[in-house]
């Protein structure tokens, strides 16, 4: 494996964890997803085209790992929601209270959106993927990305009281 690839992968670990968390919503599952993504990325490093951005390529691996994981888990259990876990909340003691409240309101609103909408918002507005890159990760046409994203944005605006 090219050391440059390894270093790029290391730089993106926080992004991977964030995306994994948005998919799984549980810190322990997110950890496993990141782990799986890293292992698969290392094994598949040879098939990565260095001309393309690494983010979509990695996110796609994470997403497939998540699909693998969830379709094999059907047993109901107690879900620990990441947003209820104090250690999962941002440590932003320096930040103004107002900003923190706004952030929590956004997190809360994301939680109430349909998962499909929350996912596309995450990829584009948080991870800053382009429409085309998100289409690649989600395996849907770009037109679908745009219609879904626009619905999701309006739904989020409504929940946040943005007019």
């Amino acid at each position, binding site marked *: 494996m090219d050391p440059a690839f390894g270093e790029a992968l290391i730089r993106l670990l926080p992004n991977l964890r964030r995306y994994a968390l948005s998919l799984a919503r549980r810190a322990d599952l997110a950890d496993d997803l990141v782990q799986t993504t890293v292992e698969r990325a290392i*094994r598949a490093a040879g098939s990565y085209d260095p001309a393309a951005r690494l983010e979509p390529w990695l996110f796609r691996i994470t997403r497939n790992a998540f699909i693998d994981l969830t379709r094999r888990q059907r047993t109901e259990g107690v879900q620990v929601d990441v947003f209820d876990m104090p250690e999962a909340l941002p440590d932003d003691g320096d930040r103004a209270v107002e900003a923190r409240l706004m952030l929590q309101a956004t997190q809360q609103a994301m939680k109430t959106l349909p998962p499909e909408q929350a996912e596309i918002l995450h990829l584009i507005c948080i991870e800053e993927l382009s429409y085309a890159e998100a289409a690649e990760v989600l395996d849907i046409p770009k037109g679908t990305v745009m219609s879904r994203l626009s619905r999701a944005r309006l739904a989020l605006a409504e929940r946040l009281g943005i007019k």
Partner: protein
Amino acid sequence: MQIDDETLMALADGELDQAEAARVSAAVARDPEAQARLRLFTETRARLKILASAAPAPSDKDLIARIRAASSAVQASGTVAPTAPPLSATPPVPANANRAPWAALAAAVTAAVVGLAWWQMGGTPAGLPEAEVAALDSLPSGQVTELGDGRDLTMIASYRTAEGAFCREYETAQDAGLTVSVACRQGDTWQRQFASDMTATDGYVPASGDIAALDDWLAETGAGDPLTPEDEAAALAD
């Protein structure tokens, strides 16, 4: 000019080319209503962007060490690390909505699974129950049916093996027990060729063993990506 939401959003997201962006911006400047709608898109993006810095940051020390080790292993030997056979970067992708994670997540899950996989390559016919055969004959992937004996059957996906056999992956569930199976059509009958029993346990155990077993089976038989719903329907009609 009437500017639709998707165009406004593309402007807010920097997805329009320069000429288009200039044209739309000029139109927005003359249209207070469009300005208000544009703000919905810029503001939602700005609010979400803040979340990028809000993720928990557990230590990635071990992972970083793992990645650096993989890098240096290659440096040393000049070849691919022997313990890391190349895998497809994109494991079989869902050809239908059933593989989409959300359907599964809705039914989610914290108790985990441990698996025991077994193969029936050749050998005696598996003698599948009639209800399972009926589902294999007609149930599209992504749909669930009751087998009449207390079990549910979820059709996952269809494949063609390298030899051209038509095979289908499905799950049967009863209470906490789950079996992932693959059956292939042989003439007028179905033969189960792979099955992995999973039992719920306390706490979370990664199911990678089961995934590996299924992936191995798929790789061994040369099965490619799942068939599209159209191709599957055509195969079922044969």
